[in-house]
């Protein structure tokens, strides 16, 4: 109890920091010069209607590479952290079989969800959404399968290959930017194309698709590693 009061007191102290920030905040009516530059020149320079995508994939492409790396890193860590000792699959049967209805429904839904995900990341430069969102949706399809059927096995080999190939390609496209265009991760290695079309905005659709594939496979990878542990817990 005393501890909680103490914590509240400390947080009250922290709140004073926030209050002073709040006080100085005010509201704003105009964009910062930086954002104005993006709004005015983004179309011309990058060629993507979705300015957020322009910022994420091109202007701040290095951050995005970092983000992808974080997921990749977590997937790698979780895989060697939760490495399970050759559990015998036959013994890992859950307590109760999943009903046929749920199984069938989920199998039916899975490809649809996956297609949605792919749609989201392929169109990332045009509409809301993008590689991360699409990738997350793709991974959701695997979550669905795992929830419906605990014995569902994600093929590690395929996932790892997709993950690595898309990652390498991402970096490769980034390096092409140095060689063919203005700098690392410059999207102008391909023509900007017609504004607002699917195949436009230079390398953005490709990069975002790669990101989508990578994020989807990484999240699935993490999930499947957690699943491995879950199987082990069933056993115990």
């Amino acid at each position: 109890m005393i501890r909680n009061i103490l914590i509240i007191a400390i947080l009250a102290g922290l709140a004073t920091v926030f209050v002073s920030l709040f006080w100085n905040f005010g509201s704003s009516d105009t964009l910062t010069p930086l954002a104005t530059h993006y709004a005015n020149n983004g179309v011309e320079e990058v060629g993507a209607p979705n300015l957020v995508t322009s910022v994420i994939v091109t202007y701040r492409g290095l951050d995005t590479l970092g983000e992808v790396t974080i997921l990749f890193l977590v997937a790698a860590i979780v895989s060697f952290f939760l490495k399970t000792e050759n559990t015998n699959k036959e013994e890992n049967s859950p307590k109760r079989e999943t009903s046929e209805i749920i199984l069938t429904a989920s199998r039916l839904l899975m490809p649809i969800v996956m297609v949605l995900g792919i749609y989201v990341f392929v169109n990332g430069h045009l509409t809301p959404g993008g590689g991360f969102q699409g990738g997350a949706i793709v991974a959701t399809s695997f979550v669905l399968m795992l929830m419906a059927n605990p014995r569902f096995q994600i093929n590690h080999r395929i996932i790892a290959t997709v993950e690595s190939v898309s990652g390498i390609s991402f970096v490769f496209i980034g390096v092409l930017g140095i060689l063919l265009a203005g700098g690392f991760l410059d999207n102008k290695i391909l023509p900007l194309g017609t504004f607002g079309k699917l195949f436009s905005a230079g390398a953005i659709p490709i990069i975002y698709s790669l990101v989508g594939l990578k994020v989807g496979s990484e999240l699935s990878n993490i999930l499947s590693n957690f699943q491995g542990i879950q199987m082990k817990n069933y056993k115990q």
Partner: protein
Amino acid sequence: MVNILSILTMNMISPINIIAVSLGIAFFMGLLGNKAQRTSYILLIAALLFNTIVSLQWLYGLANNLVEAQQIFTAGYKPPFSINLLMGLNEAVIASLINIVGLLGAIYMGSTLKKNGSGSQVVFLVLFMSLNVIVLSRDLFNIFVFLEVGSIAVAGLVILQKGVKAVSAGFKYMLATGIIAGIFLIGIIFIYRFTGSLNLDQIIQSNPAIKQGALISSFLILIAIILELKPFPANGWALDVYQAAHPGLSAILSSAVGTANLYVLYKFTGMAGDSLMHYISLIGIVTFVGSNLLGINQKKARRLLGYSSVGQIGLLIAIMGLLPHSNSNFKLIFFGILTSHYFAKAGLFWISGIIKAENIKEWSVLRKKPVLLFLFLSFILALLGFPPFPSFWGKWQLVMELSAQGQFAVIIAILVGSFFEVVYLMRWAGYSIKLEAGTLPEIKLSKYIPVILFGLGLYAVGYFVSQSVEFGNTINYLPLLVVAVLLVVDFLPAFVKNSLSILATGWFAYLLIPGQDTIKFIFTIIFLVGGILTLIPGFQIKGKREGFYPSAMLMFGGLALLIEASNLLQFFFAWEIMTIGSYFLIIRGKKSMPHALSYMLFSVGGAYLILLGFGMVSAGNSGLSLDLLSSIKVYPVLAMSLMAVGFMTKTASLGLHIWLPGAHGEAESDVSPMVSAILLKAGVFGLILLMLASGGEQNSYSGLFYVLGWIGALTALVGNLGAIFQEDAKRLLAYSSIGQLGYILFAFAIMTHMGWLTGLTYTINHFMFKAILFLAIGGIVMKLGTHNMYEMGGLIKKMPFSFIAVLIGIITLAGIPPLSGFGGKWLFYNAVIMKGWYFQGAVVFFAGTIAFLYLFKLIYSVFLGQLKDNHRNVKELSIWFLLPQYILIIGIMVFSAKPDLILKPIGNAIAMAFPSNQLTWEGTKALSTLGYWDATTIMVVIGGMFVVLLGWLMFMSRKAQKVEQFNMVYAAERPERPELTHVSHNIYAGYNKALGFLVAPGITNFWNYTTNLVESTGNFIRRIYSGNGQSYAIHLVSYIVIVFIIYLTAI
């Protein structure tokens, strides 16, 4: 080689390739899966090697002005529109440091990384990629992203170490870094709000300090990065990781991650106004002092290293806040201290993984592998800022800079923190040298090589930094070269190395003596001829005597440099070198471990006072010449007192003397004369320099010298009194040294011509007779295997030559005519009477009578009385012990018969400073205003009387019958304790009642009390590290709040 480098620099590899190649390879390693561990490990090494080459290439190019600093614009747009990286000289240095430790760290952790498969290698590679980015990037949010990449990678690598400890430490780490990241993010988003940019240069340009909202945002950003640097006390989470993680990872955390984060702080400091910088320095100092205080009681090696890491990084944070970054020496200071920390901490963590000893007491196992022990000690000394390591130069320059700014309180705080660090690191060093050694696990080459390379790197960078520091190029490295040679040939038998050492010492003397003034000449003779004489007994020692000669030459080399020194830096360098050497000599004695530590602590404490004094001397003056001692501008009396007290730790004056009896008494037989007859004179030499510079007779420090006079007198009394109650022959001599040095201090403090003649005569005499006595007694102790005088007796017939030597020694000491001690006494009375210091003089006189008591006890107990049964077969000391004694006896005889040979030139030399009431000479007759003294006549008369009496005695006893000593038989009882059979055991017990209070261990108790207070304070504060990760998170948030509130009240 140069050609290859220049070709390389023609085609600079863009640093962006560090990211591209690292990530490309990392993603490719994912493709390999866990089967191809070998391939992926080779790829890992290749990538890290590539990074290293790129950063070193830039370092080479930028340092030699072959290329210009390069901006890298990602996505082809200029900042602030896209993220940009900057590769300048600073970045190249830091990135090179990081990448080198990455490469060697991967080699070191090879087996672990291979065992855990490509996943762990990916994490390792990504960690180093992220560190490179945070160093290079100029975009705030980008730095945040890659800091997070780094944190996650660290959290992933922590669990490479098996066991729940590592897992829980990793979780605590994640809790803490998660909160820090949140705070950081709030800061970033608001700084974007208030400045409209994420580009670091633009933000700094917009000067966030002028806008309150922006100021608070930059406060949050800075506090976040500071929290990443583990400030005390909000750092429990980090200590756990240091302790529990794989030692290879701890090394990386401390050196690479620490360095990268420090550089991020450096980049961010532009955002902070001056007021914030102030708090940054305060945070750093609190961390440095607090963390080192808490380290004192730590017994677990890696946690101890954790405390030390936190402390060192705290010091670097402090430096960042203290000195304006435009200061020309800022980078040098920072680089010097940073690289010492970098090399030493990585090296120590790596060693901890090699020897697998958790408790610092088990580190004695290092002795099984002398190279490792040498590296371990080098790393420790580097952390403590001893020469020739980079931190020495850094610390020196830091103190000089802070002195110039008048920030003496800060200097004191930093020195206190350093002192705490000395306590635990030197204790550890002592354990490793002295304790029982266990068994050393098998050492893999892959773990051994990185440590060796880092050891070499430390020395190389030390030399490099020394050449950049002001006056650093005036340092003479010759003695250190000699030490290096002796280290290399340490496998040779002792007599070869002994000859080499004697030759080298002679060579130093040959180089030093020409053109030397009289006083320096005398000290050259004492230090170096004395060195040769005390090295001679070493010929008796069989075997290799590992480590002895490098230590001895370090000490003698330091002493030689001390004489050669013409500026403050050279002097301090020599002083520290000498201190290290003598420490390693003293600790060689069987029971010397605690005494060597206490010697070291007093020496370091003294050295810090000297450093502080030197800082005051340099402040307000230009240059560093030793002549500045006579024109101190800032707090002259205080500066003078600090330096005097500093030198008095070496001369073991009252209050600072408690280290001496143990250190000198327990040292090896030929080391005791070195440290007693020779080393103590280094303190005297320092005092002489000070007092001469103070203006001689016309000085403005009469109050100080009056106090010093009293201290000298009381030291003489207490030292001599201590000696009479000793049963240990060597300790008796050690206490006698304290007393004698008290005389010397007293005599110099008189500050007249006669006083100084007295002081120098005493100095020369003490050198000669103490060397004789310690050589003789030390030789006997070695032969009999006991220090206790009551186990000796009747040795006169077995060791007549030693007896004669000791007799001459004590006659000189006691000041009995005709030997030179009497001359000293005559001068002394003249000086005291002329000065009118009657009270002090009486105390010294009284002390002199006490000296008779212990001298009688010494010679009687050892040589006279009955021979002990078990000593029937002892022989005379070997020629190697006798030879130097008899050479010194010749010296005493010459000085006694013809004192004018030495005293005349001394008189001339000090006449400048002390012109009035000089001693005049008429032939061999010395005249003062009070009377005269003719040493030659006295010698002839007393010599004649002696010969006549001796002849008469021999004539009378020609018919005397020789009686063999027979066994004592006790009627039906034997005394329980053997000492009771010795007649002179505890003979002065009676005096204890009258004078015992003077030797009551009040001073020892005072120091013990102080030590206990410090230790228990440390122990008490240490409890905040309860082990609960949640508490650590609470500390973290409270820390932010408290710093903010303090900060808020100030702005």
